[in-house]
């Protein structure tokens, strides 16, 4: 009787609260964050100038801005290189995560094999594998970074997909049994379409994480063509404002992936579950 309380502590871990199709923002919903952001930048500028904070601790936003304006081509090409790594890793990790979850759902044995591995993988700081991969594949290839991104992406996608696949209405499961559907037909007609909102939530969560992984993976050597490598080399050369300019570019890249993921989630979820007009 005392144990009956315990599951509640973990109940929300498995709830479907993750299916958030995005809240409707009012007409001027964008205004408060923009005002806040501009205000924060202004405060930053004033504080750094008035207090005389040295540049190696914190450069002024105007100095960072000057760096951005000074080399747009480099910022663009490095963002492209990192963005492409993030995208390739995201797509590969997404496909693998969904396929693995499908396999896990199709048989008890595969589920028992894969689920603990993925659970363990979610506890591993996967970016820490970057130097190992660089040694394995050499420092003249993008493969190590893309591999890191892929591994980072697989975990949330697998977990979200597996959860979606498990949430089959009993009446649907019964129906497919009565129709003598094969496991593959069951997956294709019922489990997978029903899991799509969950899968898209997994993708939305994984998208910005892919950028973070792509940037951080570059800190550990290899090609010097991306944002992460430029951040670390600029910082090493005491070019602090330049380092910050690349940080700003990676923020923009991360936001881009975040909103793309959000958009994909909303579009797909709306298409599959069109409600009464």
């Amino acid at each position, binding site marked *: 009787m005392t144990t009956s309380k315990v599951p509640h502590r973990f109940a929300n871990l498995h709830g479907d609260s993750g299916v958030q199709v995005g809240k409707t923002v009012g007409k001027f919903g964008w205004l408060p964050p923009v005002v806040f952001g501009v205000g924060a930048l202004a405060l930053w500028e004033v504080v750094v100038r008035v207090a005389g904070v040295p540049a190696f601790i914190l450069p002024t936003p105007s100095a960072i801005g000057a760096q951005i304006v000074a080399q747009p081509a480099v910022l663009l090409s490095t963002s492209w290189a990192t963005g492409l790594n993030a995208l390739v890793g995201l797509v590969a990790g997404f496909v693998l995560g969904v396929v693995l979850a499908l396999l896990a759902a199709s048989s008890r044995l595969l589920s028992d094999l894969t689920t603990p591995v993925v659970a363990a993988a979610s506890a591993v700081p996967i970016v820490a594998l970057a130097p190992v991969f660089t040694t394995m594949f050499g420092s003249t290839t993008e493969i190590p970074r893309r591999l890191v991104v892929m591994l980072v992406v697989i975990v949330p996608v697998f977990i979200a997909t597996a959860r979606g696949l498990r949430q089959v*209405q009993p*009446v*649907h499961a*019964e*129906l*497919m*049994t*009565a*129709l*003598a*559907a094969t496991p593959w*037909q069951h997956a294709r*007609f*019922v489990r997978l*379409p*029903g899991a*799509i909102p969950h899968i898209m939530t997994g993708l939305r969560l994984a998208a910005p994480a892919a950028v973070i992984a792509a940037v951080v993976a570059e800190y550990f050597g290899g090609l010097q063509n991306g944002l992460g490598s430029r951040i670390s080399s600029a910082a090493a050369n005491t070019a602090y404002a330049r380092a910050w300019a690349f940080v700003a570019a990676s923020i923009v890249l991360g936001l881009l992936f975040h909103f793309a993921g959000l958009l994909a989630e909303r579009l797909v979820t709306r298409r*599959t*579950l*069109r*409600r*009464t007009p």
Partner: protein
Amino acid sequence: MKGTSAVELVGVDKDFGEVNALSGIELTIGGGEFVSLIGPSGCGKSTLLRVVADLEQPSAGTVTVGGKPPRQARVDQEYGIAFQQAGLLEWRTVAENVELPLHVHGMAKPQRQARAAELLELVGLADFAGSRPSQLSGGMQQRVAIARALAPSPRLLLMDEPFGALDEMTRERMQAELLRIAGETGAAVLFVTHSIPEAVVLSDRVVVMSPRPGRITEIVTGRRPAVGKAAELDPDDVEDVRESSAFFAAITAVREALRKGHEA
């Protein structure tokens, strides 16, 4: 009616661990016959239907569906099934939901679509072929579920309280619909219900069951409108049945059988 029986149950028992859900069930349903199972909760009427559908395995006895073992009958889609919940797939249109059994069975798309259009015509929902299930009322959704059950032209329709979640008016309309559909398709129907009038108005025979252990206590002749008229059956005929004295006599008979089973 056809010579072969739609369902044959001989000495069927079903145990769930200690619980004796079904005991010594003997029942034969003829081709085109409409048989209702009625009884209090826990009398095993749903279990009996699920045994016929091969969703449960009997503990003893033999079950034959369309002359085949239940498993083979299920694989060959010898029966169509409808549950209390319509259970439509929200990501498919109404027509695509009706096509589902044919899709599972690998029928080509043009044939599937033609058959779905035919069935939606039959259940009076031709105008809603492209709609999403959530756009339909509960009664309409249940009609789609019936059309889906009929898609592979089964000789047997299994229905587990399909109108249980509908309001009384919709329910009576659906009963008239079902009688017309059963008449037009000539399919046998095994129908589980809680409602005495529903069982009487629909059935050729009403099978009364009692719990602990689940068994058949009596079989009462129902008041299904004559088969000859079924093809052009209109709701007024069903209304006439509902107001006839024979209908009330049958209801009384079922009620007494239920009470006897309860006391036993």
